[in-house]
Structures are given as C-alpha cells and as structure tokens.
C-alpha cells in the first residue's frame, strides 16, 4: 500500500466535490445542514484516527484542538478581518503547534496515563474557553460573523456546502497519500510494536510527535469548517460528549481505515436523524442503543463495521465462482 492512491479513490473525491455543488440546488436546508455536519465530523474523525487508529496512541486532547480551530478562525475573522481562506489555515496551524507542544511531554506516556494526561489537557482547554471572557466571551458563548471567501459571504448551509465538500476532499486526499507514505507506514509500525519499529530504524518519538501534530491540524481544520455553517459556539459543546461521539464513530466504523471512519461518521450521524421517526417512548433509549452498539462493536467487530465488510468480501472472493461443469466431448462411437 505504497505510492499514489488508486485512480478510483481520487475519482470518488471528485464526485464528493461535485455533490457539494449540486446538492444545495436540490435539498432543503435541513438535509444540507446534516450533510455539512457529517462532513465536519468526517474531518474531525479522520484526524483523531491518525493518532488513535493508525499510530495506536490513546490520546483524547483532540476536542481541545477542535475548539482552538473554531475560536481562532472565528476571532481572526471578527477581530482582525482575516478572511476564511487565510484564517482557517492559520487556525489549523495554531492547533498543530499546540499539538506539537503537548506531544513533546505526552509522548513520554503510554496507555491509560497518556489518555488521562491528554483528557486533562482537554478539560483545561474547555476551562479556558469558559473563563477567558474578553476573548472567547466565556460562558455567554461567541456569536460568529459569517466568513468571507474571496469576497463572497458564506452565510448559510447552501453556500457552505461546496466549500466544505472541497475541504473534506482535500483532507481525504491528504489522508490517502499520508497513509501510503513512508510516514504512514511508520505510524502503523509504532502502533503494532514500538520495539520492532525502533529496531527497524524508525524514530518512535519523532513519529509520535508528528502524529500528534498532524492530528491536531485536522482538528483545527474541522474547527474552521464549523465556522462555515454555524453562527454560535459555546464551551459546553467542546466537552466530553463530542469527544465520545467522535470516538464512537471511529470504533464502530473501524479504526485505522479511512473507509471505516467515513462509515462510522455516516452511521452515527444519520442514526439519530433516522430515529426521529421513532415513537417518543423509544427516544429515551437512544443512549442505551448507542452504548449497546459500541459494546457489540468492540466485542464482535474489533475492526469495526468496515473490517467486517472487508472480511466478508475477501472470503467471498477466496471462494471464487462455483466450479463450472467441464464439457466432456462425446465419445465417438465406432461405426
């Protein structure tokens, strides 16, 4: 799995962009909003999966970097008048820089200690968003101005969808290239065994730091995407609930696979909307259903739904088509 991605995958990215331009002319705001939300979660989950699924680091500071991305993009626009096309990359770079700084001490930790330390950082970040009134407007929440792209105001779901589709396509393309690169293989090697990776000449610490930094960059981009179709951010939305949702998307879909992450985002994103048609008495069971899905996924599908689908397809391919009857030439009868 080295080198450039197959043309089919790159063509799919083109289709995604095309859909981003076509769908706003065909669907009502509600469906466009759900589409934009799913695409934002896809960028967020792809980033977390680089750290969690590809590099095997149980770090949970992702939601903090996402928050930095939102606030930085919005504030650069509102306070300094920096347009989105510049503000979003700057915000993502800021998130990546903070990710790098966090990675330096965090990569000395492993397993539950790493999880706890990074979760504590996420809590601290939420506290900063909540209490830094003069910048974030604290607990009142921040009303964001509509961003501008090349002088064009993106003020609603219809305008935002093509832009978000392009950003998701770029991030998906980058991920496809990343996981097929030397660095991507190093991520997998560190995930599978740090000792073997080190023995193979991979700089484990450097690889982990890069995974943290790149993952934080994705979260920053997702934060920028948020400002394209939402007009308000509140620190309450940057807590454990969002983190658990993104984690569930990755685990249920299939960590360490791009297709799995996208499948998880689609499933966990669409399921609540599908459940709207359910009788009211059943709605309170939603959390139970999510928990059950997560437990069942961990128990019976350790590679997620995507792993199950791939396994089935491969098994079917191994069996091959049923043997054909070989025509036997009729024996010539002697006269």
């Amino acid at each position, binding site marked *: 799995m080295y080198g450039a991605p197959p043309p089919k995958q790159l063509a799919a990215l083109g289709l995604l962009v095309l859909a981003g331009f076509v769908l706003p002319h065909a669907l009502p705001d509600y469906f466009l909003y759900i589409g934009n939300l799913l695409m934002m979660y896809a960028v967020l989950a792809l980033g977390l999966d680089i750290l969690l699924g590809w590099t095997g680091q149980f770090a949970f500071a992702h939601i903090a970097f996402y928050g930095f991305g939102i606030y930085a993009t919005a504030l650069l626009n509102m306070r300094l008048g920096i347009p989105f096309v510049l503000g979003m990359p700057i915000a993502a770079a800021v998130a990546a820089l903070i990710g790098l700084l966090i990675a330096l001490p965090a990569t000395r930790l492993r397993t539950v200690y790493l999880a706890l330390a990074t979760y504590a950082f996420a809590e601290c970040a939420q*506290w900063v968003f909540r209490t830094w009134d003069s910048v974030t407007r604290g607990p009142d929440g921040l009303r964001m101005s509509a961003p501008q792209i090349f002088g064009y105001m993106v003020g609603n779901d219809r305008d935002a969808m093509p832009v978000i589709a392009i950003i998701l396509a770029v991030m998906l393309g980058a991920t496809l290239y990343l996981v097929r690169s030397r660095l991507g293989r190093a991520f997998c090697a560190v995930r599978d065994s740090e000792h073997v990776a080190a023995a193979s000449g991979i700089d484990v610490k450097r690889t982990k730091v890069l995974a943290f930094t790149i993952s934080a960059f994705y979260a920053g981009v997702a934060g920028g995407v948020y400002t394209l179709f*939402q007009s*308000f951010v509140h620190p309450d939305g940057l807590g454990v609930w969002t983190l658990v949702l993104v984690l569930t998307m990755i685990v249920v879909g299939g960590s360490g696979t791009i297709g799995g992450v996208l499948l998880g985002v689609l499933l966990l994103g669409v399921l609540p909307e599908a459940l709207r048609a359910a009788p009211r008495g059943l709605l309170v069971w939603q959390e139970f259903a999510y928990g059950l899905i997560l437990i069942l996924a961990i128990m019976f599908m350790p590679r997620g739904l995507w792993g199950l689908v791939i396994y089935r397809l491969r098994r079917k391919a191994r069996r091959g088509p049923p043997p054909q009857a070989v025509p036997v030439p009729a024996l010539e009868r002697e006269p």
Partner: protein
Amino acid sequence: MTIGMKRLAGALALGIAAAGVAVTAKAQTPPGVTSNEIVIGLFGPLSGPLVAYGVDPLNAAKMVYDEVNARGGIHGRRIRLVIEDDKCNGNELVGVVKKLVTVDNVFILHGGSCTAAIAAAQEYVLREKVPFVMLNAAGDNAVFPATRYMFGSFQGTQRVYGSALAQFAVKDLKAKRVAIIVHDDDYGKANLAAAKAVVERLGGQVVAQERIPPAIADITAPVLNLRASKPDAILSGAYPAPAVLLAQKYGEFGMTAIPLLQSTQGMPTPSVYAKNVGNPDALKNLYHTWSFNDIADEALHKKWVDMYKKYYPDREPGPFMVTGIPSALAVVDTLQRMGRDLTREKFVEAMEKLNLKSDVMTGPLQFGPGRRDALRSVVVVKFDGKTQKVMPGIFAWNGKDGN
C-alpha cells in the same frame, strides 16, 4: 406572427399569469397554516442527560394545546404539533429547527430547555424570520439583547432570581454584608451581575463572590471563603447537586445563623433537596425563589397535576412539569388575540403585546418592542425542610440591574 405563434404566445401569457396567481396565493398563506389547522414545532430534550428538563414540560405544553383542541381549537383551527428531540445540544437543536422550518413547514417554533443550545439557532431563526417561543429555558443569553423573533424566559431569567434574592436579603432581612456564590457559566454570570447591582443600589456591600464549576465535587474551600467574609446573608445561584453540597457544608461549619438564599434552579423539588441535605439544622434559615403560584395555592397545583394525569395516566409529573405550561398559554393567548388572519409577522406583533395574567405564574407574562423576557416578578419562599411558606411581597427585576 403566424396563428401558431400567436397561440403559443397566448398560452405563455396565460401560463405566466397562472404562475403569478399561484405565487401570490402561496405568499398569502403562511407556512403551517391551513383553513382548519395551525402547525407548531414543539421540541425539547427527550433523551440525553438533561431529559428531566424536557419530557414533563413538553408533555405539559402539549397538554395545554390538547385542551385547546378539545374545546374546538382557535378560531376554527386545530393545533397540530410536530414533536422533536433536541437533546439540549446546540448542533441537534439547530438541526431540529431547520427540519421543522424547511421540511415540516411549521408556522412557529415552540421549544428548547437549554439556553446555550437555543442561542445556537438564533441566527437562523432571525434570518428566516420564524417566531421562536422558548419552552422553559431560563438563561439570559437568548433574550438579552432582545431580538425580533425570539421570545422566552417564561419563568424568569437569572437576572430576576439574583435581583429578587438581593432585594429580599437587603430589604427584608436587613443584610448589610452579602456573600454570593454562583457557577462559572452564563447562568452564574447573569445571576451575580444582577444580585451585585441590587445589593449595591440598596446600600449593601458584596463581601464575597465565589464562582464554582457546575460539576464541583468538593465545595469546602468556597464555603470557607464565604464564612471568612462574615456575611449577613448568602445568596446562591447553584444547580441542584452543588446546592445540596453547599447546604451540607453550611450546616457542617455552623453557619446556620446566616440566612441562605437559593435561586430556583437549585431546588426544583424542595422535599428531595431536604432529604439530600440530610441535616435539618441546615434548613432552619433557608429561602428560595419561585416563579409559580402552586406553593401558595394547593388547589391550583392539584388542578394542573390532575389535568396532566388525565393526559398521561401512566406518568407521575416531575418538578419541572409546571415550567412547560406558561409558554404554551402565551402562544394560545396570542393566537386567540390574532383572529383568523395569521402571518408570522403578525404573530410577532401580537406576541409583543402579550400581557397575560395567568393563575400559574407569580407575575404577568409580558413582552414589548424591546423586551423578550416574559416574567420579571417572583416570590421568595421559606422552606424549613417540611413546609414551605411564601414570604410577603412580590420581588420584581427593574429591567436595568445587572445589564
């Protein structure tokens, strides 16, 4: 021009005229209104961690609409509800609002139990010009500053609670030195600002201000800080769990000679609060704000509970049930005053003229051109762990303190 072309031109002109008539007809009929029906989008947290704030209030609002329908509707139109779950989550609530407006084509939105989630939908509602009547959210952010299409705070804002407690402390309890403890969120910020402004306006002094996180597990240090400030009264804007911790430490540290005044949100069910505190001494000098007349009027309380049980015989109403009633009453009153000529803009104008003196509430529900918070008057109740006694007087926020 040939005859064929003339016919074509005539057909085109007719088509354009017909389309124009159709567009005009469509423009005259607002979304969600037919000759015999008004569609209202009703929503709240029906799942998730904050479900307690949503299910009973939403049921209560539905009950009010069902009663109206049972009496024949409003000016010949029945109310049809499209009910949705917003989980008290901003992303979810925005999705719900967009679904109700663009897929279900409701006339107005009625819902939301959490202010931060509602605030996330504000920009969309204002852009699409859809009236949004909050169900039972009591935060200040959705109604300050006032915006044209959003109406709320039917049980009072934090400005109202903070102001009422401060007035009662300084005027009735003659407190000169007041200590305030609130959360480090939007509720706490608004409550503190109003309480502080009132105390200082009335000649008192705020000697301590403690801001605690809503998820605080140990409240010892903030309570010791309050005690060290030697206050004559302590005002609290804490939520239920921290309010219990506060009362426990207050009792444990022998502070019961100092009156403890709690905002409504800290003790939705006083009997449960007393049981959780577990120390009768801590309740000897306890007061709390309340926005409803059900404490003073047992018969009134029974009337609403009985009506609730009529519609939901399998469900015992929780403490928040009553909070869903006033906003529904306000919507019904507004629709009744409007007559049969309904448009969203006319609804906004009629809502601005709301002056509803309901038997449920401690004060009138009012809006105005620059006012979107309905209730500004509450009562203060003394609670000794067993009985509740409404203290004399109504405590009103003046619309300025804490702004």
